[in-house]
């Protein structure tokens, strides 16, 4: 009788149909492509209304994403950080934790990498580069440590605390780049140039495809290992059924803290890549929107190795293509943002049940009707 109510709330574990798996796979594929189709069509309509030819626009976008060596390099250099953040966030997501703090951890990682690189300014590159990578990762971890402990020991909702720490990071970097880290000659807030011995060089000249992109490959392989590992399995089990995991001796605190630290470390690494590879300096906006889009990529990729890769490439291509479209055809790149947003909307409908399931445990500590549970 209460079917509206029952739908999302109760998983019908009683007798799941034998054919569920196939059916959900086909529906998932068709809804995914439907989301893409809707985004493309609605995006095209918006272009029409704003007086642009959608075919020209999409052509320019495709060309700007894949059409040349430069375009490819651009797509990859944008997809790599998204994938890295995506993989780290996916580890937490699989354990049932929703961290949305990658943005702040990228900022912290960039600062950490810069400071470490400056400390190792005279060391050989073989030392300075890995040292700065570790520095970035450690700062990223430090940035999530307090939210992780709050969640583990006091059940403080990690969505809120990680978001709060993103705000802290934004304020901190603003302060640092206006004061202690700002070179006397600079007018706008920024750091000294990144030390030469720590720079991640270009793989292909004339593009922005730098060696930092390979970090995404390493992180991707590490993620594949994690998913297949015994430890990763126990974390996934915790995400699936925390009560069962605890009864099997899996420590709740350990899962919570470690998986959040892993996500912090990967976001920190991205800070390092952006500072040492792409921008070669630290700016206030160094994290761009990577933290948030990385989260989106993790969600849309279903927190799986292949899914995150595809989603990161898709968003990398859209971003590279959007900018190219603006410069070649004069069509505003914000149209590409709209398409990204439409995609996000479409996919989030597709994944609504999972998202609800994932958030339910977290939200159980709070009620929407303003009553505090005993």
């Amino acid at each position, binding site marked *: *009788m*209460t*079917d*509206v*109510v*029952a739908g999302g*709330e*109760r*998983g*019908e*574990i*009683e*007798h*799941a*149909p*034998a*054919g*569920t*798996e196939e059916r959900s796979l086909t529906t998932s594929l068709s809804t995914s492509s439907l989301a893409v189709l809707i985004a493309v069509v609605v995006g095209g309509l918006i272009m029409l209304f704003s007086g642009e030819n959608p075919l020209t626009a999409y052509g320019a976008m495709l060309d700007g994403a894949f059409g040349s060596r430069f375009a490819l390099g651009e797509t990859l250099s944008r997809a790599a950080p998204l994938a890295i953040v995506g993989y780290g966030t996916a580890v937490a997501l699989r354990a049932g934790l929703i961290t949305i703090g990658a943005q702040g951890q990228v900022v912290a990682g960039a600062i950490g990498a810069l400071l470490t690189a400056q400390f190792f300014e005279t060391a050989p590159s073989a030392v300075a580069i890995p040292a700065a990578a570790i520095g970035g990762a450690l700062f990223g971890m430090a940035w999530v440590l307090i939210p992780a402990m709050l969640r583990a020991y006091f059940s403080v909702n990690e969505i809120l605390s990680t978001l709060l720490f993103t705000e802290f990071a934004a304020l901190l970097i603003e302060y640092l780049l206006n004061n202690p880290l700002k070179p006397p000659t600079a007018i706008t807030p920024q750091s000294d140039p990144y030390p030469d011995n720590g720079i991640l060089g270009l793989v292909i000249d004339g593009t922005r495809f730098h060696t930092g992109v390979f970090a995404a490959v390493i992180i991707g392989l590490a993620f594949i*290992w994690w998913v*297949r*590992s*015994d*430890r990763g*399995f*126990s974390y996934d*089990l915790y995400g*699936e*059924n925390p*009560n*069962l995991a*605890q*009864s*099997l*001796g*899996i*420590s709740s605190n350990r899962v919570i803290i470690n998986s959040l630290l892993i996500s912090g470390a990967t976001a920190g690494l991205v800070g390092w890549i952006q500072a040492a590879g792409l921008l070669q300096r630290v700016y206030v906006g160094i994290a761009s929107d990577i933290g948030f889009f990385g989260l989106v990529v993790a969600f849309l990729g279903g927190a799986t190795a292949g899914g995150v890769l595809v989603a990161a490439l898709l968003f990398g291509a859209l971003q590279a293509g959007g900018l190219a479209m603006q410069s070649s055809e004069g069509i505003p790149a914000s149209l590409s943002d709209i398409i990204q947003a439409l995609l996000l909307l479409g996919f989030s409908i597709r994944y609504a049940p999972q998202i609800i399931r994932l958030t339910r445990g977290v939200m*159980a500590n709070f*009620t*929407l*009707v303003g*009553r505090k*549970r*005993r």
Partner: protein
Amino acid sequence: MNSETGAAPASGTPLSVRGVSRRFGAVQALDDVDFTLEEGEIHALVGENGAGKSTLAKIVAGSILSDSGSMSLFGEPYQPSSRREGAAAGVAHVRQQLSLVRGLTVAQNLQLGRPDAPAIFNAGAARAEVERWSDEFGLGVPAETLIDDMPLAIRQQAEILIAVAWGARLLILDEPSSALGPLETQALIALCHRLRSEGTPIIYISHRLPELTELADRLTVLRAGKVVVAGADVRDADLREVATLMIGDVTLLEVDRPEIQRGSIRLAVSDLSVSSPHGVGCHGLDFEVAAGEILGVVGIAGNGQDSLAKALTGQVKLTGGRITVDGTDISGSAGQAIAAGVAHIHEDRSNGLAASFSVADNATARHIGNRRFTSFGVRLGDKIALHARELIERFQVRPPEPAAKASSLSGGNQQKLMAARELEQNPAVLVAHGPTKGLDPEAAKAMRDRCFAAAQAGGAVVVISADLDEVADLAHRIIVLYRGVVTDAFSSEDMTPERLGAAMAGLTETSGATGD
């Protein structure tokens, strides 16, 4: 779906089902089923797990479609294509898994999804309505308490109350008593009788035959999707015969208890106290269980059983006392409990399994950290599947498919899967919480045998259950929990209904009652 099937239903008959069939892949869940619900009757629908009872209920409620056949409701042709349509026609289906929203109050649930819901939620009116119905039926359903904070029995009453308030003309209760204690079941029976006298006919689905004599007027038995007894009068029915018809093997109901040699003490619980935010917790429990011994813990649901089960398996911090297994203190550490050989059959199967994980992953989950199944930290899928196959074979999990999702198994097989995981090695202590709850007789027998086998192999077994028959079948010794304390303790030969009833209702002097 066509007019020539069967005779035209008598006008006004609350429900008439003619020739309904439904197939799920290879399973013919319902095969040409006829079923008639008469005015003012409680009609029991019985059958073992997988017989098709829930499928029939869902078809009547409109949540799934039949492949063929026809139905009529109060004389009108009836073809619901959704649960909402069924509800609008007056069919209320209280499911095995209750479907109230847990973070809302009863009054809020009353209004949510209501067919004739007003556009604006009037909290006062909703509260008054809940209170009115609750009074009318003599229930204690609180209007303003969150569903989450209510015991299962009250939740169930709330769901029935909401169904009635929504104007149900016909009620289907799917295994409503499977999680209730005796007193709660009595209250449910009284409520059903009350509804019947108000003119609401009820389809009552159950595994428990004894309660039907008191409850129901007529009885229909399903076996493997076919009707084997159609609407027999319950007073004339021989329950042993019905049981035979259900399962085709009456000896399953007779527990032949093996002789078990009692050994030294393996589980010692002293002055155990646990506080629980949602329940009563436990206070000052003392008992010991020897090798080969089965201790039954009975009590009305919600009297500290959950806290005790959690404490014995190391899942909660104790507020006092200690628990030792073979002399090792396992208090408050699930890891140590596992290392000491404590096995746990969870009360709630959905809690005891990782539903979306494979059978193999579930069967071998106690081996997390076992190097035998990993190489460089990576799980060796082949070795795990091979080992899972052995367990599936030993514990007769069906279908024998390591890659199948745990959620795709039937309840009985999920229980076997949990047993396979927990009982692979002979446990030092087995904590079995409602081990045969909701299982058909055959699956229940398999679980009972597992408990006996664990005791025979030298384990100390604790069976916690609200089902007195289950405890009577298994236990050598019984303790009774009431509000988290032990109110009586006796050996199973001394168990009488009077003594049990008094202890469970808290009428026994508690002083000095201990488990030994």
